[in-house]
């Protein structure tokens, strides 16, 4: 829409900037994706059979399952955490506020390693876990921990931002009208978080599907057991099964693109700010 308010046709030097952005997006995003698509199309039957192989399907299912579990855990932890960070005043709140973003700053590989030192056989908690008969490292719980750790900041930050913006006046209004804390949460606070939750959920799923370093180190990428879509690609490349790798990579790329499109459409819906 050329006539959209705040948008204009680029003039002069603005053209250069537009061209640079187009080149950047094209060069770094579109071209590699096209190359990937081309590689897949070159051997479509091969890719199809590689992707329908039991190990590939299991890896994909594990990734989707991990994303779903992370989504639920992040939803609960994100809302609780954001409420604590924005609505409570306590000693060390600022420190906690800063630490929330830590997972975004550190390398996922380091994260995985740190968890391994905690939960691994020779880890700090190793003896305890062993005596309880709980297996975390190189098992599903480890994958869940790694994924949630890496994705929680997206959800939490987003929700905290929304809560901060909302302020407490609607919650105050609910109190004066006789609502209990619980009623206020369910009827006022949570519905107001809907948009933030949608965005946080999208980012969580996208990040969970794409997580590699932490799940590789803490999960071990054991084929058929802790092999996720991303580690599947890694293993396939190692073993020179390029068709499997390309196919899985394209599936992940398509999933990410679909998620973003979904988000874009939602934000354009009337009634959604």
């Amino acid at each position, binding site marked *: 829409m050329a006539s959209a308010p705040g948008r204009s046709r680029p003039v002069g030097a603005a053209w250069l900037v537009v061209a640079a952005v187009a080149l950047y997006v094209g060069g770094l995003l579109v071209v590699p994706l096209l190359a990937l698509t081309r590689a897949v199309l070159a051997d479509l039957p091969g890719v199809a059979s590689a992707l329908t192989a039991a190990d590939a399907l299991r890896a994909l299912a594990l990734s989707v399952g991990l994303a779903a579990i992370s989504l639920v855990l992040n939803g609960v932890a994100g809302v609780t955490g954001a409420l604590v960070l924005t609505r409570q005043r306590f000693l060390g709140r600022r420190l906690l506020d800063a630490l929330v973003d830590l997972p975004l700053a550190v390398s996922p590989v380091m994260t995985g390693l740190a968890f391994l030192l905690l939960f691994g056989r020779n880890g700090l908690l190793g003896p305890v876990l062993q005596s309880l008969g709980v297996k975390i490292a190189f098992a599903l719980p480890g994958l869940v921990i790694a994924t949630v750790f890496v994705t929680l900041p997206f959800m939490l930050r987003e929700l905290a931002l929304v809560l901060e913006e909302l302020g407490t006046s609607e919650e*105050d*209004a609910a*109190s004066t009208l006789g609502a209990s804390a619980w009623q206020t949460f369910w009827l006022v606070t949570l519905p107001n978080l809907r948009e933030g939750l949608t965005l946080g959920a999208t980012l969580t799923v996208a990040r969970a599907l794409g997580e590699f370093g932490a799940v590789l180190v803490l999960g071990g990428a054991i084929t058929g057991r802790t092999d996720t879509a991303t580690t599947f690609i890694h293993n396939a490349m190692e073993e020179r099964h390029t068709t499997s790798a390309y196919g899985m990579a394209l599936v992940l790329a398509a999933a990410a693109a679909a998620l973003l499109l979904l988000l874009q459409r939602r934000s354009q819906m009337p009634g959604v700010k």
Partner: protein
Amino acid sequence: MGIRVQNLVKNFGPNRVVDDVSFEVRPGELVALLGPSGGGKSTVLRIIAGLEQADGGEVWLDGRRVDAVHARERQVGFVFQHYALFRHMTVAGNVAFGLRVQGATAQDQTARVKHLLGLMGLAGLEDRLPAQLSGGQRQRVALARALAPAPKLLLLDEPFGAVDAKVREELRRWLRKLHDEVHTTSIFVTHDQEEAFAVSDRVMVIRQGRLEQAGAPMEILDHPATEFVARFVGEVNVFDATMHAGTARVAGVTFPPCEGAEGVDGTPVRVIVRAYDLKFWKDDAGVARVDRVLPIGDRVRVEATLDDGAPLFAQFPRRSSLLTGIHAGTRIAVEVTHARAWPIEGASHAGAPIATTSEVRSAAPR
């Protein structure tokens, strides 16, 4: 219900925003808390509602001390400054909220919502979202929502602050009418003196967390207890003078015996004269010169300069005979019909910054 507030104190960090405030509101009264922005009025209101915890003092509602009672159990309706409507709920949903959380049946909710929306002139807007309403409509939805659970006390925080002047005027009259119908004890906060006088039975002037004066509008206007109150509730001329036998002279203008300075002799005082307590007439031998004559709606504002250079202004009804022959450049005689004076207490009172929405003129060098 009746309200008693006693020795209320509230600090925000190092700032004391409510400083030993005590007052009573009788059942059925409509009272205004008037004062400059940031003076602690809203905080007093929030403490009464239970949204804020006082650092000291007591709040009694209907003879019951409520300091430890949660906001949801105080049965106090609150209208927030920026409405605070539930943005994801329809108008009907907003108004029904209080009844809903208190477990009223669906039929009761519907009936009450219908009644209130009718009363508020909002019928037909049930299914709108707050974002689809005008400012005045939102304000009325907020009021309907607060009234729905039949609160014993209604608190309004700058209720008309966020709507434009014309709507504000309408809402004021309408709030007064509503109060005369439902008789819910009400307190509203405002920084607008006109609003306070137009709507309330009684006005309490609050400044820097302290209650300066409480009384009927007429009492506050005609017998301000402090210089601050006098200057805050309307446009005034301010003169520094020395009293002699109950009167004072400044730049050729003689003041009548000043209320508040009876029996004061030889003491420096600050004299305050309201814009409508002056008379001007054309006199070539006069003591001042007219600078401007500004018609402002139903009144005319005349700005002049005294011969000693100090500015002076007055307001007259539009067709007043006092305006005959008064134009820019006219020399005039000045008569002060009513004045109030306060002794200047060192520098503390005189130098205190006075924030006001009305204009304050000083006619004498400090």
